[in-house]
């Protein structure tokens, strides 16, 4: 069997998902990661820590307290669990000029999946409307990826089919008291559908990864590796003998050679000689992959950027006012819901237990004083939930464009909350509030807040399949360059897209593996 080496740029979910079919087909994969590994830390239990127990300040806010450095506007998990150096270096690498948008990435093995919320629904035919592929084309990949990363959730609630039923799913994690109470009063309706979220979190062990022990430290990173991270798959890939990972290797440019090959130039900090490659897979995350591909194409026109506008609200369960915080519990999304929004579309929401979050994060964005806000939380935290609602990218308004000189291309991103997004968000809130009221939850007045565009970290579109890129991820005009990450998804529904990014990367990886085999045989 003759082998062809494929260079994969990026060790996040897309790069890892694309590597598996290549390696399984006998091709060698050389993965380049701009960052290095970042340890998840010690396993500790949230309730113990709040009683003043170990592990102490630096363990929670990062060495040198760098966790405090990140912008207050990004998700608390990115602030608390991510390697801030990785966040900074991603932005620096992009040469990012963001106008009205928050664009984040993470130069670390595993990429953003080291800090994600693990929400993993599949996309339906309606969700991929306008794409050059249908949902059936993703089905085998969804199955394989799900089997590898491990999903948990409910297969018999009102959202089971909506979250996808053709994939293996472990039993759902036990719901928190607040979530269980809301669910117990829920009666099926078309206007408001409620269920358990579909999560890439283990309720039973898988391989070397342990099942969730409800320690509650999810926001600070999961030391048990119950929450999937692409970094967890690297040892398995290395074990195939066909896979190599090279960290601290940040690609600055990809150029075409006269003989048809590609050459990768690295940043000076990486201190690497340029690397020749016949096949390069772009999986650096949508903004970084877009920057590299657009620079290779010399394309300086503005490209669409699909974001999923999002808003938050606070929900109070008066019936739980006298409860204590649960000592054990899962710290990410407890419940998922779907409401109709726009013509035939939907908004997708999640409910978190506020007690699983760091209280200062909840206070600092309000107008309350720090002291008053914390005191208020002291009284309300056990009965408080935080809602996070997403809208489809069709109402987002964002674009990105390559700027700067060709040697040092920069990425300019501009975005704004469109009037359509705001209207759709208000419409969704009008539907959600009474539905939750019937279940015993009161949306707190004044708690509705639109998130800054991009802070939800759902990026897609600049290298859309069917436009700059073929349905098989081939970048038109640059033979040997294949894009596989979020950048190639033409649009996003209100649902979370990481699982679909992985499935699509797997699908493109399979077709690349087949192409390479037929080319060499």
């Amino acid at each position, binding site marked *: 069997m003759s082998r062809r080496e494929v260079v994969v740029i990026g060790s996040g979910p897309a790069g890892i998902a694309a590597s598996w079919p290549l390696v399984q087909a006998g091709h060698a994969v050389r993965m380049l990661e701009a960052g290095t590994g970042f340890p998840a830390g010690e396993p500790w239990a949230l*309730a113990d*820590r*709040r*009683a*003043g*127990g170990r592990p*102490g*300040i*630096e*363990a*929670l*806010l990062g060495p*040198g*307290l*760098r*966790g*405090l*450095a990140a912008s*207050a506007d990004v998700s608390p998990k990115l602030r608390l669990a991510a390697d801030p150096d990785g966040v900074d270096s991603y932005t620096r690498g992009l040469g990012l000029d963001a106008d009205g948008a928050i664009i984040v990435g993470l130069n670390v093995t595993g990429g953003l999946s080291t800090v994600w919320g693990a929400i993993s629904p599949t996309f339906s035919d309606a969700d991929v409307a306008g794409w050059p592929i249908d949902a059936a084309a993703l089905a085998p990949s969804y199955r394989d990826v799900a089997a590898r990363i491990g999903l948990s959730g409910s297969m018999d609630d009102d959202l089971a089919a909506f979250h996808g039923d053709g994939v293996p799913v472990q039993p759902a994690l036990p719901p928190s008291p607040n979530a269980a109470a809301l669910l117990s009063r829920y009666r099926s309706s078309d206007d408001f559908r409620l269920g358990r979220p579909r999560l890439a979190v283990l309720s039973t062990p898988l391989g070397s990864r342990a099942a969730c022990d409800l320690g509650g430290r999810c926001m600070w990173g999961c030391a048990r590796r119950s929450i999937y991270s692409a970094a967890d798959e690297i040892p398995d890939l290395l074990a195939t003998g066909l896979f190599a990972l090279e960290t601290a290797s940040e690609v600055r440019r990809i150029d075409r050679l006269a003989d048809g090959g590609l050459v990768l130039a690295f940043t000076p900090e990486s201190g690497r000689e340029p690397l020749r490659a016949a096949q390069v897979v772009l999986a650096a995350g949508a903004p970084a992959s877009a920057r590299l591909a657009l620079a290779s194409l010399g394309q300086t026109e503005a490209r669409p950027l699909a974001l999923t506008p999002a808003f938050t609200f606070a929900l109070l369960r*008066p019936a739980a*006012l*006298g*409860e*204590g*915080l649960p*000592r054990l519990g899962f710290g990410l999304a407890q419940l998922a819901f779907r409401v109709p929004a726009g013509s035939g579309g939907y908004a997708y929401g999640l409910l978190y237990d506020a*007690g699983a979050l*760091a*209280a*200062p*994060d909840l*206070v*600092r964005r309000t*107008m*309350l*004083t*720090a*002291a*008053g806000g*914390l*005191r*208020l*939380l*002291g*009284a*309300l*935290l*056990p*009965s408080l939930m935080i809602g996070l609602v997403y809208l489809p990218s069709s109402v987002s308004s964002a674009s990105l464009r390559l700027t700067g000189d060709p040697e040092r291309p920069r990425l300019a991103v501009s975005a704004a909350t469109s009037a359509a997004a705001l209207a759709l968000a208000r419409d969704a809130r009008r539907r959600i509030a009474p539905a939750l009221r019937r279940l015993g939850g009161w949306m707190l007045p004044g708690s509705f807040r639109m998130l800054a565009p991009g802070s939800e970290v759902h990026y897609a579109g600049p290298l859309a399949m069917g436009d700059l890129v073929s349905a098989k991820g081939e970048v038109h005009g640059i033979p040997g360059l294949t894009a596989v990450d979020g950048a190639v998804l033409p649009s996003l529904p209100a649902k979370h897209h990481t699982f679909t990014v992985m499935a699509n990367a797997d699908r493109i990886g399979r077709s690349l593996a087949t192409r390479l085999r037929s080319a060499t045989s």
Partner: protein
Amino acid sequence: MTEAGARHAIVTGANGYIGAAVVDRLIASGWHVTVLGRATTRHISVASIAWRLGEAMPDRLFPADALIHLAHDWSEAAEGNIGGSLRLIDAARRASVGRIVFASTISARADANNRYGRTKAAIEALLDRPGETSARIGLVYGGPPLGLWGTIRSLTKLPVLPMVQPHQQVQPIGLDEVAEAVARLAAGACADRRVVVLGASTPMSFGCFLSLAAAVEGRRLAILPLPAAPIVASLDLAGRAVPRLAGMAERVRGLVGLPFLPSDDDLGALGLRLVDPVRGLARASRRRILGEAWLLFLSLGVRRPPLAALAAYARAVERLGDGAPIGLPRLAQAWPPLIRIYEPLSEAAGDGRRDTLKRRLATAAHIADAAGLLPVYDYTARPAAVRLMRAVGVLALEVAILPFRLVLGRHG
């Protein structure tokens, strides 16, 4: 009374801003110190002998290994300082003191603009034998607010500082760095050099230095540049009537004529690497930031903030914030719960460069949270009515203080 083997240093001007630091440093490195001066020092192990510049040498002063001459009599005419120094130097030479270190200034020149510079240059000229070194000291900062540093600290409390030549280059050096350098000189370093320069090897504008010094006080300084010549002339004129103003004209003139002296070689020979003044000045504000941390933690309901949390706050402010104390009003310092009436509604600062009090409180809250100190997470069931009353009470207070916050909110 001298321990066997301990070296003996005689120090003049030991109660001054630099002198006190030098004595501390000498004692820390095992010197036996005799203070020659006006009053006793705070070190009980230090012998002190009453003396004034110009007076005859007291008995039983020598033998000594080093004389460190820091005293300068501002009330005296140039002649008094020069004559007094000469007496002192002669006495030391007669007693075979092997090392004489004299505190001079970067402005020392025979034709210096001000008398201070000319006086120091004249004394430097006396020190021409082996083992005699004049240390030309730059702009000293840090430590207690005394000397020129004290003057600078009080100037930076002004809302607007009218200033002659803010672009004048100065060579800052930290007080502890000067003390270290003088101690090394006393121990024999650079004994072959008649003059060493103690100041930053890269100069910085005086205006910039003052802005940084203002940040130590948690203030932002507006500098109003003034032309030098008319100011000096008018100060001179006024100085004839008001003696205090004469001293000011003297200082201004000293600043105007300040040369830049390369210091790399001397610092290298002394084995010293100076801290960047930007960093050094930030460090000077650490005590105030720790005090601020204490007050903010108390205001958040943390009963006894542990040192680790205070230190973490100071680190966070220095590394990730703007590095300067926020400058809490006296009322809030006296009663920390009042801090909330100065808390702005949002974290965003006016110019985005200075931290707002709200951001500082968020930092303190995150650190208290990470240290497990926040009395927020209640794992025990309690009567719903109690919790409800508490929530209503908090909200009522929040509404009541809202007008104060709108008016008083500290935007850095």
